[in-house]
């Protein structure tokens, strides 16, 4: 099965393409085909994973080349894949969570007439994401990278009739493209400097021979790509808008898998980043800033999905932070990525379930007291909640704890900021829980909340279980050990405080956050409509406006581009084309001028003949006499 691991890409790809070209007849079974394809991919991945597990530790990497993709002179790219411990984890995460979300979508999209196409897109996404994580060449990775971007574009804009959805999809794609410029330039730099884009070769060479400046340039360019894909500052603006997509999409793409591709990229390129301290620092800074920014946004949004999206940003910030810490953090970045994939998918699907029951209302101020109405959703969501805030024993507890620990190992201030983030996370998640499930009900008139069908709750239960149990991966240092062939040995810094002490501190901070939120949102009743901007603090206002990310983009990029475009269109017509047309006009004028002696009177012509002959005679005389 290990040699056939590439089938994991092919199955959903074929299924997705098939579903797209299948006519209306496919509508009845399309969703089943899609789900089965995803499940088959999961099974293949699982078997391959088990086989990999069965191999000796130094042989846990299977590489292969499907075919030569591009080969021309010095430029050679193979369609090469590599199934190693890191890829294996991702394959399982993508296909596993992916399959659950496929199942969930059967229920969630039951009433959508274009459900077949939705599943086709989901399958395409799975295929592209698997390409991304299985690629053994940066260009192949880029293929998957853009593939998930396309799938994301299609799925965000799935409800195309909504202008906001279409705009959000376009925004996501374009901002991702900005990041892709970095990716593309990084790959070009690899070719120019190293003559290859094979991930293995590049990382090995950069680590050993290339100059640090090259490594730094590569690292920063890859970081730009990662920022785009993972919605990190400064390319974060698309993620909140991306919530226009159907909720399963938000869960799969914009929480569990695609947005974490940036983290994957950094971890995968550990050879480059290890050789480029400057780039690592940049990763840490980006991660920290995003962590806090996302948390801030999560605290202020009333839209349940956007609050969760802010949280996603923040959690990816954690991962980025960890990845930027170098060998000390790679394993934990991936660990947090996996656990986050579980609990965030769980909560997004829970949010979807809530919206499903609340007639697609996303405003938490219209929720409240859903605990009774949706017991399963509440229970699963609650478990996810406990996981994300880092309740001891839950998966998030382990993963976040390790990152904070590693951050303190790097620098006290970084650690402190990460710790603060944990507190804020607890605050906004508690706020979300309170507003949605426990506080008095504030439902709108014709809303009748009800529990979702079984097909939707089963994935919730499974994911909730995973959220709770995800922590086992770290027991006995398993994940560090497992990833060692890929990311190298995980270094442990000696901290002033012992590990259990650190855990207590973190838990305490989290408890403070929970308590703060609880007291804030249970003491006074929650208003049915949000207070006006003028009535809230500066920080809240900033959070509501997504820290003015859109405004900044608008002022710095969008509007100048629009003006430039307009000016250029004007100049093209007036100046460039105007020059040409002006030339033509001048020619016409000259002709008109030359035309004036042509009176049409025969006597004028006769006169010119006489003058002409006079000239000829004079010339003849001049020639003869000279």
């Amino acid at each position, binding site marked *: 099965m290990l040699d056939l691991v590439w089938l994991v890409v092919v199955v959903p790809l074929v299924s997705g393409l098939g579903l797209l070209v299948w006519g209306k007849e496919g509508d009845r079974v399309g969703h089943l085909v899609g789900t089965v394809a995803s499940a088959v991919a999961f099974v293949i991945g699982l078997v391959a994973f088990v086989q990999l597990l069965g191999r000796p530790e130094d042989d846990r990497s299977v590489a292969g080349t499907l075919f030569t993709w591009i080969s021309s002179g010095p430029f050679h790219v193979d369609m090469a894949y590599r199934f190693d411990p890191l890829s294996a984890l991702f394959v399982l995460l993508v296909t596993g969570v992916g399959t659950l979300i496929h199942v969930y979508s059967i229920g969630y999209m039951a009433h959508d007439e274009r459900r077949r196409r939705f599943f086709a897109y989901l399958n395409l996404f799975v295929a592209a994401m698997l390409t991304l994580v299985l690629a053994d060449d940066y260009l192949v990775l880029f293929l998957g990278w853009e593939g998930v971007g396309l799938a994301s574009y299609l799925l965000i804009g799935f409800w195309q009739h909504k202008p906001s959805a279409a705009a959000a999809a376009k925004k996501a794609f374009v901002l991702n493209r900005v990041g892709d410029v970095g990716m593309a330039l990084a790959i070009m730099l690899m070719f120019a400097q190293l003559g290859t884009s094979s991930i293995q070769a590049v990382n090995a060479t950069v680590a050993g021979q290339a100059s640090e400046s090259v490594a730094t340039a590569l690292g920063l360019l890859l970081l730009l790509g990662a920022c785009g894909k993972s919605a990190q500052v400064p390319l974060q603006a698309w993620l909140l808008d991306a919530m226009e997509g159907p909720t399963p999409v938000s869960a799969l793409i914009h929480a569990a898998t695609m947005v974490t591709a940036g983290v994957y990229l950094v971890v995968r390129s550990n050879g480059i980043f290890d050789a480029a301290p400057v780039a690592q620092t940049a990763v840490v800074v980006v991660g920290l800033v995003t962590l806090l920014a996302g948390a801030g946004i999560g605290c202020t949004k009333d839209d349940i999905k956007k609050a969760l999206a802010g949280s996603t940003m923040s959690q990816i910030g954690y991962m980025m932070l960890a990845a930027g810490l170098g060998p000390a953090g790679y394993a934990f970045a991936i660990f947090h990525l996996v656990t986050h994939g579980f609990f965030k998918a769980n909560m997004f699907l829970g949010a979807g379930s809530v919206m499903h029951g609340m007639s697609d209302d996303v405003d938490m101020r219209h929720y409240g007291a859903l605990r009774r109405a949706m017991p399963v959703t509440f229970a699963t969501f609650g478990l996810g909640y406990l996981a994300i805030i880092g309740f001891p024993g839950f998966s998030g507890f382990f993963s976040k704890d390790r990152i904070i620990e590693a951050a303190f190992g790097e620098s006290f201030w970084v650690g402190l900021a990460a710790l603060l983030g944990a507190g804020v996370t607890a605050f906004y998640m508690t706020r979300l829980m309170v507003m949605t499930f426990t506080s008095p009900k504030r439902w709108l008139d014709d809303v009748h909340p009800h529990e979702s069908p079984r097909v939707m709750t089963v994935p919730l239960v499974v994911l909730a279980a995973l959220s709770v149990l995800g922590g086992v991966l770290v027991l006995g240092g398993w994940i560090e050990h497992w990833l060692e062939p890929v990311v190298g040995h995980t270094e442990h810094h000696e901290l002033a405080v012992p590990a259990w002490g650190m855990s207590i501190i973190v838990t305490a901070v989290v408890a403070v956050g929970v308590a703060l939120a609880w007291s804030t949102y249970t003491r006074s009743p929650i208003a049915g409509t949000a207070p006006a901007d003028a009535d809230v603090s500066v920080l809240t206002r900033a959070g509501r406006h997504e820290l003015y990310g859109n405004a900044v983009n608008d002022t710095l990029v969008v509007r100048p581009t629009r003006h430039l475009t307009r000016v250029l269109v004007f100049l093209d017509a007036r100046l460039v084309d105007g020059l040409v047309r002006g030339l033509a006009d001048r020619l016409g004028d000259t002709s008109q001028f030359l035309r004036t002696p042509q009176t049409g009177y025969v006597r004028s012509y006769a006169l010119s003949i*006489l003058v002409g*002959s006079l000239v000829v005679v004079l010339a003849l005389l001049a020639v003869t006499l000279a």
Partner: protein
Amino acid sequence: MTAFWIVAPVVVVAALGLLFARKAVHAALSVAVVMVGLAVLYAAQGAPFLFAVQIIVYTGAIMMLFLFVLMLVGVESRESLTETIRGQRLAATVAGLGFGFVLVTAVGQTTLGPVTGLRSANEDGNVYGLAALMFGPYVVAMQLTAALLVTAVLGAMVLAHREALTPRRSQAEIARDRMAEYAATGRHPGNPPTPGVFARHNAVDTPAPLPDGSPAADSVSPSIVARGQLRDGFDDDIHVVSRQLRREDDEDEPRRGSGAVGRDGEPRRGSGAVGREEDE
């Protein structure tokens, strides 16, 4: 040389007349003068055959053709001497003077060497010499000129010919149309009255009198009217004639009375009056 100094000024003056004559006829006459003058100069230069041809062909044939066309077009047509093309006259004058000056200067500055003269060439007579050349080396050219002349004649015929656009009308049709027109507009169907019925001299310029004694305007040619040569003193003529008659016969009263009767009632000669009576 004497001939030249006599003829040359005449020729130049006549040529200038071509430039300044307002009437085309005068221009044609000056050209005729130039041509005759040139014929003389040909003769003076040992070209008697050309002298004859110049007189016969140019002055005789071509100039007559010109005059004939002038007659067709209208002898009295005058050309307004104001220039219509801006600057044309000035430019023409300047260019002409410059051209002439350059040519004359160039010729004046040239020395041609001794004149060979045509004595040896005209040994057998000018006409024999010409004929030997024309039917010798130039025979093809001469044949071509023959073709050219024939072509020119045909060309002139084609150009001057006007295609009949309507079928030729029979006499009966013409008569019917005339009557129809008379019924419609009252235009007289017959011939217009002839002039000079009551004339004392060249009668073409005197209109015929109608039965009431007034002049019939359409009895004289319009061109006479246009030239202002119409003699409209119709009543004066009658007066003069009656005075002469009175001198011959003192008792003129009864004659004048009968004349009056004749004017009012009696049919008089003149197709107009007859026609009018018939129609009534």
